[in-house]
């Protein structure tokens, strides 16, 4: 299928479209593997569980929402 149908279509794509397709495939593979992309921004990266504050904040909000649902 790849050679007969998909490959000719891919060759018709522009350079930018091929890059975007590549990006899509990488994202799909990462998602299927349960992996998260490596950070590319210059923001500080959490070094470990000791400074996963964003994660703690998300869990805290989830618990608060659940409590609100149960107790009103």
């Amino acid at each position, binding site marked *: 299928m790849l050679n007969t149908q998909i490959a000719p279509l891919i060759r018709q794509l522009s350079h930018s479209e091929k890059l975007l397709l590549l990006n899509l495939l990488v994202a799909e593979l990462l998602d299927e593997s349960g992996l*998260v992309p490596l950070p590319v921004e210059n923001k500080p990266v959490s070094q470990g*569980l*000791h400074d996963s504050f964003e*994660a*703690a904040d998300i*869990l805290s909000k989830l618990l608060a929402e659940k409590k609100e649902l149960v107790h009103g």
Partner: protein
Amino acid sequence: MADKLRFAFTAVDISFGALGMLPYLPLVLTSQSQSVSVSGLLDTGSTVNVLPYEIGLELGAVWENQRISVPLGGNLARFEARALLLTADIAQFPSVELAFAWTRDRNAPLILGHMNFFITFDVCFYRSELMFEISSKML
């Protein structure tokens, strides 16, 4: 009902004697109707509770149904984690709700961290005695 309970450290590697002993807490986790008996490492250096992938599956949790992504750092940053709320029963204490970062890492340990184990329980470590004591803040 006792307001404080003491537990012994668990031997993880007996070849190292006391150095190979760590504070693991026995607890029963429940999700809807399924329960699993586990031991969680009390980790004051962890901001969150962490649930290994397999235990979540044993509890009947469905990965695709957990929509809230939880970004973890360090070794666990390579794996996606999602928020999962579970009921926990610890000895004679009243049941509590614990929020976990459910990681796709199949080799991750079950960690009890600040959010929200240490928010729910006070813990005193007696390392020289290889014991720890917990008390519920709800009592």
